[in-house]
């Protein structure tokens, strides 16, 4: 029996949050989002269960009277916005403050956030897809966005283990080629590859009008070298190791982190992508909410 790595309480908290695009996405006419073009030919397509945030005026009161369920009438004019969650499951994500499959590891935190997003978006009726880069396990690594993909997404997230190398550059190129125009891509990664390498590959997404949002997962202990004594640090990806005295390098490490974040934000800013830092020890709901609203 696999463990479902999402937090029901967390999901409940973020359920009330609205998905807001940082930029106006044409297909998102409902809610607080503003479409750049008004639909004039509205044709009923189907019903969907009401979810908090749905406009009350779209409730089909007749059906509600018959079935005691609140349903929303959906029309052809509403644009379907596919959302692809890109999960980095490379070996580096396997580190952190606990075992990798728990929330306090970087991968655990990343998977939890991805699952939460998937469930939330799915409940909203948005087609959700999943792309896992790196990782190990028996799962479907590429699940295109669709209306009934949530079980497969959850299954994949529950199965994935950290392994291998992310190769973000090729991953972003691949996503950029596969995603339709004006879709949303949410990347959950530690971004531990040189921004100068993978940054240009975001150009494809940007050129296709894809709204990209990056949830940057990190372990504060790793970034601050918060270790008591000299230690040998080794990379789970390629096995490279380095013996060092954390106390002697701690001060310089702060400068390096600052410079690295500057590089990341610079690359993402060039391609109009939002950036959300997610410490594995901090509250995830705030990060997810910010990512949904597209606020950096």
């Amino acid at each position, binding site marked *: 029996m696999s463990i479902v790595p999402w937090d029901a309480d967390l999901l409940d908290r973020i359920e009330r949050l609205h998905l807001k695009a940082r930029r106006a996405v044409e297909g998102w006419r409902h809610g607080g989002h503003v479409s750049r073009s008004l639909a004039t030919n509205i044709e009923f397509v189907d019903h969907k269960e009401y979810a908090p945030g749905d406009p009350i005026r779209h409730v089909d009161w007749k059906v509600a009277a018959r079935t005691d369920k609140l349903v929303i009438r959906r029309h052809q004019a509403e644009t379907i916005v596919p959302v692809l969650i890109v999960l980095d499951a490379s070996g580096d994500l396997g580190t952190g403050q606990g075992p990798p499959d728990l929330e306090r590891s970087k991968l655990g935190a990343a998977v939890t956030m991805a699952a939460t997003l998937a469930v939330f978006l799915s409940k909203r009726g948005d087609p959700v897809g999943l792309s896992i880069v790196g990782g190990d396990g028996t799962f479907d690594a590429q699940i295109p966005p669709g209306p009934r993909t949530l079980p497969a997404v959850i299954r994949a997230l529950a199965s994935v283990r950290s392994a291998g190398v992310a190769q973000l550059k090729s991953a972003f190129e691949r996503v950029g080629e596969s995603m339709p125009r004006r879709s949303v891509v949410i990347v959950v990664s*530690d971004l531990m590859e*040189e921004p100068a390498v993978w940054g240009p590959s975001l150009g494809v997404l940007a050129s296709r009008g894809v709204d990209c949002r990056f949830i940057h997962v990190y372990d504060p202990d790793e970034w601050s070298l918060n270790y008591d004594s000299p*230690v040998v640090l080794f990379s789970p990806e390629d096995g490279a190791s380095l013996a060092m005295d954390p*106390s002697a390098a701690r001060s310089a490490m702060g400068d390096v982190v600052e*410079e690295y974040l500057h590089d990341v934000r610079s690359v993402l800013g060039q391609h109009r992508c939002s950036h959300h830092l997610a410490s594995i020890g901090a509250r995830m709901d705030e990060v997810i909410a910010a990512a949904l609203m597209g606020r950096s």
Partner: protein
Amino acid sequence: MTLSWGTPLALGLLGMLAIPLLAHLIRRRPDDQRAYGAMLLLQRLPRKVRRRRRIEDRLLLAARSLLVAAVVVSVARPQLQWPGAIPEFGGAEAIVIVIDDSMSMALQGDTGGTLLARARREASAFVSALPESTAVGVVLTGGTASKVTAGLVSNHPLVQRQISGIVQTPFSTDLTGAIRLARQMLAGEGGEVLVYTDEAGEGVVEAASAEIDLLTQQSGALVPRPMHASDPANIAIKSATYGSGPEGGTVTVTIANFGPEAREVPARVKLPDGVEITAFVEVPAGEEARKDFTVPRVAEGGIGSVFIEDEMLTADNVASFHLPTIGASRVLVVEGDPGLTPVASEVYYLERALAPWGRLSGMGSGVLPDMAAPSGVDSLDAEAHRLVFMANVADPGPWANRLIEFVDRGGVLVLSLGDNVAAERTNAALAQLLPSPLRRARSLAAPGEPGRPTVLPDTTDPLFAPFNRGGLGGFANIRWHRVFTVEPYTDDDDVRTLLSIEGGIPLLLERRFGSGRVLLFTGTIDADWGNFPLQSVYMPLIQSMARTLGVSSSGAAQTKNAVVGEPTAVDVPASVSEAQVEGPNGIVESTFSDGAVRFTPIEAGGHRVLSPGLPPLAAVAVNVDVTESDVRRYTSLAKTSASVDPERFMNTAPLYRYALWLALALVGAVVALGRRRERSHAG
């Protein structure tokens, strides 16, 4: 204090101190290995920062460095040396024991007895522990150093008995002489000289350094055995002297405090006639205090004594001093040329100068003049009169023998001249007494001229001492028209010129004769040849003559001072054929030869030289050597000896032993700290 290294080259091994430092700096692969997911950030770290290592476990590093330093230092064998050690002794085949039996050794020690008693005890114990074959000699330092044993002997019980028989002396310390005797006993064959001394007295030890040097050169070794009281203190009478002052004068007593605390001591002055004057004297620590005791207006002459009370050292609690007879001094004034009027007579001026308020008032002023014609010399009483003024006497021949005897026994004769004096007759009668034979009367200035002035006298002479306070210039106002000249003479021990007229003409000459003195005044004592009687200095000078010349000390012909333990000689008149010395407690051993009595006083107090049928020939005030009273330590014998033979008196501290112990302790510390570190790494 000096530091020496047995193996100084070993200090080069201090470079090994780098070993623990490098050991702590060299990268050691940590045991703690962690998966790290941000290698990208580490790769961005500068290479030197990645390799930087802080020195780990500074306490362990310090312990290791100290361990290396301690081992290196112990190999280098450092030694600390400083002077002041008492060298090992008792191993020589010949040993001379020098025991200080001087007065200061009578100081009460910490164990109840005196320092000398302790010295005797320790020396005797030392001798008893010597091998039978060791030859031993004993020398004393008190007074003049002396041998207790004739030479080196091997009869140790005998030496011990002789040491036990050493008695305390009131003498000074002859350390130099004692070491010389010890050196002579060793006869250059080498050996040890153990000196049991309190090292008291300023300069006593330093004076012996040359002798110590000689001893060292002759293969001898001096071993100081200091005998000290833990907190030496002593109150001593440093001096007692009679001098002028109110009433009958003052006895000035100087009391020294050689201790660390101020003391108030009772002091008592006992005059020769038994009168006692007491007072308390506050003496500051380490200083002296002077106290003046006023003598009554009438007092018997002789040797007085001063006593204080001090238990630490009793020998210097008494001092003696000469006291002249205080009170009326009878002066016989012989008038040789009575004038027609009172002012034309010498007696007129002399009587008023000697007794300004009448003859009876002389009882109070100290001078009682008897006026007489030349025939009055027959009434000269050697026991009563102390001074005879012969003023312008034409022919002293008839009384010459009487006058000579008077002077020989200590009397003072003053001859003043004038027109009445005939040089031939005076020279013939008093040839033995005159400082220089008379020649003739000589005019110095024409009538109407002011006359030739008198040269200012030397006020260091007791006769002119009263003019120290003022009035000395008055002598220049004494002018002379005429004086008697004398045959050429030279000043020596017997004849002195006390006063002269400008141009080198003698005016007042003094000659010592027998036990007395003769003063020849070449002018007139009245106003015939000059204005002397009319000048302000006339009366005080005549008074001073009467007081200074007309006094005697207990009727003794001479007075003398002496120090306990020091040989003393007293000259006696040639007519004396037998003499002996009487001390405070009876007859003192003495010898009489070559016109002198010789003795060595062994106690303080008044001593008199006596001859049957004669008044005392001399009064000797004997006091202890105050150097011995200073019981404080000055230069130690060890220090002086060390300056001569420094190697033997060096303290040596082998520091390498301590370094070795430290290294062993540090080994334990390093092991403990290392284990703690291993546990820390394992955790």
